[in-house]
């Protein structure tokens, strides 16, 4: 039996890796991967703690919804990034900054 604390540690580590990728990567697709890391950290938490909520299965249910929504969000974001690429021939968010004060 793996203690719950281990799940929480792994998910916290995943979340931090994801956040680091989001903040440091200079490629929109790498940022999307970072977002995916953060989502999976949360999903892991939900599934691990679903153990205490056997009747309603809230955590498991939430995990399923989150996976589906993450897929949808990635599909939309990839389409948008593709669109950016056709105009700029580049997907580095630090370079693409026509809109600013």
């Amino acid at each position, binding site marked *: 039996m793996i203690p719950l604390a281990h799940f929480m540690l792994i998910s916290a580590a995943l979340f931090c890796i994801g956040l680091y990728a989001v903040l440091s990567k200079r490629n929109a697709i790498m940022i999307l991967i970072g977002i995916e890391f953060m989502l999976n*950290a949360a999903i892991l938490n939900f599934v691990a703690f679903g153990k205490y909520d056997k009747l309603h299965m809230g955590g498991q249910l939430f995990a399923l919804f989150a996976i589906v929504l993450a897929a949808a969000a990635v599909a939309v974001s990839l389409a948008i990034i593709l669109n950016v690429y056709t105009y700029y021939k580049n997907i580095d968010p630090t370079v693409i900054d026509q809109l600013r004060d």
Partner: protein
Amino acid sequence: MNEFTSVLPELIKNITTGMPHFLPEIVLIITFIVVILTDLFYPGKKSVHTYILVLTGIVISAFFTILQYQSSVNGISVFNDTLKIDRIGIIFKLLFSAVVILYALFIKGNTRMQNHTKGIGDLYMLLPGALLGLNLMAMASSLLMVYLSIEMVSLVSYLMVGYVSDGEKQSEAAMKYALFGGVCSAIMLYGMSLLYAFTGTLSLSDPQFMIRLAEMPQSVAAIAIILVLVGIGFKLAFVPLHFWSPDVYEGAPIPVTAFLSTGPKMAGFAVLIRFMEPFHTASNTSQGTPVFDFVAILSVIAISSMIVGNFAAIWQNNMKRMLAYSSIGHTGLILMAIIVNSNDGIKAMLFYLMMYSIANMAAFMIAGKIEERTGIINISSYKGLGKVYPLEMVCFVIILMSLTGLPPLAGFMGKVLIFSAAIESYSASNSLWMLSLLIVAALTTVVSLFYYFKIPLNAFLRQSDEVFIVKVKRDALSYISLILTLLLILWGIMPGLLI
């Protein structure tokens, strides 16, 4: 499996009894499906059939929402406490319906979008989906529903911003919006997973939620709550999370900007109220220290939103950027009404949101019309436009006066209501936060005069060097914005019609 058999009948009964209360949303779902099929097989010229179907569906759903109003005095929980239907939620839902209908009319009147090569049908198709997400946001009373509805609205908004991409700026705005939104929703999801880990329940109205959260160390609970607030704050665009809003507002097509500055923002307030509800009931019943000090953190956010929004707006020359920053300032002011947390505060907030959404919609309609006809997007180029577009510019000035909060317009009444609710709360509690909020709100209202009045100054008092050779033709949008302006005046003189 056997452990579930005892509860299954009850769960199913919960779902079947909940269905009648879900009627407005069911209508929207049916509209959504029908609209997809119509747009594929029988769109008509410029998707006119799609347009009519969307409007009909939204009106029918709004009609069913009105019918709910009578039966929901005390609030009804349906679907195992996932949704809560009460008076505030229903008022929000009606507001959303009105905003989406105005948005559809705006798209219909915008020739640039109508003549786009991709066609406009897909954009109409998104409207019932957007309204469904907004309605769910207003009713959400479990963490799952909060996340689902926020994501629903976000996905639709990303698509709207990127949809008619005919330039570099627009695709850039869509990318910034989608990436920033994705990060914020991931952070919010992590916060929710922590809350679930601490409490073992997803329902916000479950008493266990607050009891178990109060047992956690205060700092740990605070981290989880702040992570959830990040996601809500992205929708509201309050200060630490406002970076996306000026860029997205500038890059998006004008009707989409008008929608983003009204619909999702109001829904963000609805979700914030829903999320804070259990904390307030808990602090009212038990004596000990509150689980989380919403007043302090929201006050800091509101004060910085008002200051950043209003002062940054002064330096803007682009019309849409200016309205974006001013809407950040308005967010701060409306947050003040939420911090007050009394019946008066909620009433004041609803009145102000109504005024704000109407004024913002009308302002963007006129700005869009001028951009379309003359290509002017900067405030400094508005010189002399007052003589070219007399009706539109007079309406524009009245709308901006209402946003500033000058009598006798609805904006003035809204500000009076918020300020009086705040003053009442200050005299009752003597809280230092309330006092500083009041002072900052009063000061920034004066500051807002400077940037709002740049437009009438340029349009009416300054002469332009170039002569406009534009054919002035009033269309449906001019008259819609005229009606909205008249509504602002009417509600300013007779606020009793609403409160």
